[in-house]
């Protein structure tokens, strides 16, 4: 398989929650993150994620290059590679995948052809408390043969699922306890290198 044409994507709970909490920690700006995992047959398993940036400088190359080099280096020793990209837009009703996200996605795609781009769906996040839905509150984009990122419709059997079916329940729990305050991203690390972008103590 040379592209993300038919792959399924399964995201582990911790990776999923980390990304959403990161977005909630910075409600007034766009945020992004990197997805790590491996390909198992026709399934891309997203086992980890690293929140990257929250400042307006999301579109700048130097911090992104440093982050990708460092993150790739760290996780390759665990047999994981960068398998995708996560983005959350600045505005609530903006559900468009912007050019910055597409470009970063393209870059990742070069190294992992089955890569996915996930876009936070703010409406679904807002409705989470009322609608008991196990589906991830993100839109899935893959690159088809036309070399552009196309949204994968979530009808019928969804191609993006969380590994643990109760992930949204756990997420809601963390949201109500303001867990997002504890999230450290790469931006925080660059401002203060004592901050751990691995968030190793987050789920303990």
């Amino acid at each position, binding site marked *: 398989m040379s592209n993300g044409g038919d792959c399924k994507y399964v995201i582990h709970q911790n990776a999923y929650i980390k990304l959403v909490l990161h977005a909630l920690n910075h409600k*007034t700006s*766009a945020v992004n993150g990197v997805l790590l995992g491996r390909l198992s047959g026709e399934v891309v398993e997203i086992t980890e994620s690293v929140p990257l940036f929250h400042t*307006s*400088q*999301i*579109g*700048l*190359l*130097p*911090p992104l*290059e*440093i982050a990708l*080099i*460092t993150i790739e*280096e*760290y996780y390759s020793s665990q047999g994981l590679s960068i398998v995708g990209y996560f983005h959350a837009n*600045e*505005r609530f*009703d*903006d559900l468009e995948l*912007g*050019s*910055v996200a597409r*470009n970063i996605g393209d870059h990742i795609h070069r190294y992992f052809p089955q890569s996915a781009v996930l876009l936070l769906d703010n409406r679904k996040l807002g409705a989470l408390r009322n609608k008991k839905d196990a589906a991830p509150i993100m839109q899935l984009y893959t690159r088809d043969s036309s070399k552009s990122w196309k949204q994968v419709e979530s009808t019928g059997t969804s191609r993006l699922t969380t590994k643990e079916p109760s992930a949204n329940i756990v997420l809601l729990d963390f949201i109500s306890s303001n867990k997002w305050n504890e999230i450290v991203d790469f931006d925080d690390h*660059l*401002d203060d*290198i*004592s901050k*751990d972008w691995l968030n190793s103590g987050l789920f303990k």
Partner: protein
Amino acid sequence: MVSKTEESQLRQLENQVENGGGGAWEYLSLVRKLKLRRSDKVLNHGLTLLNDPKKRSALGPDEWTLYEQVAIAALDCQCLDVAKDCIKVLQKKFPDSKRVGRLEAMLLEAKGSWAEAEKAYTSLLEDNALDQVISMRKVAMAKARGDILGAIDSLNKYLEIFMADHDAWRELAEIYLSLQMYKQAAFCYEELILAQPTIPLHHLAYAEVLYTIGGLENLQTAKKYYASTIELTGGKNTRALYGICLCTSAIAQLTKGKNNEDKEISRLAAASLEKDYKQISPDKVSLLGSALKIMKLQ
């Protein structure tokens, strides 16, 4: 922009207030002074103050400033009823006030009644064409509605009149960055460096944009501005240190190592990073080493 002392002062006060140790008014005043966006905390603690009649009267004339601050915070948190109440109080105290009129228009904005808000701002501007805050609200509205190009247009017109508004230049730069209009963003940072040459953040931002645009000349200039950032911050800026390494690596790649580039500065930057990580983040030192190695090999 907030200095390090101001930041630690803020954090201290914030912790104090959040843990019931008092000092709410000092915290709120600091947030106001530094023009920070801490709406949920401002709403929470400001409202507590306002709902206590003794504390409220102790504020004296500052009471009205607090009503305004809480109203704006409430709008930001979409607590429109709270905002409406605060605005009503202010309307009673200051009838026909333009400042309260501004708050009323902001309430329309928060409700999403864009056309009405637009009308309100336009009429307020008729009486006072040089009101910066209202002009800014129009830009903010355009941005909130997703009319980014409109926001850019308004902001450019604004800057033609108020060219000394550094926050506006920064906002414009950031909008350009979100659209990947890097050359235009670079222009904004050039204006900022001209106006405030000793602020390292402008040098850093300019360097990062130049690196992003790419090309040998830009990389070489970026390196210079990373260097000036390091100078202005006494070598304490991690991003600039990394930046020097990235530039050196990228330039070497472009020129295939043929030019006589100053490698000394990147060696110093790398050494400084290693020293900082050893001291502050020792578990990441070997990771740093690998990353630096990759950059030199590229």
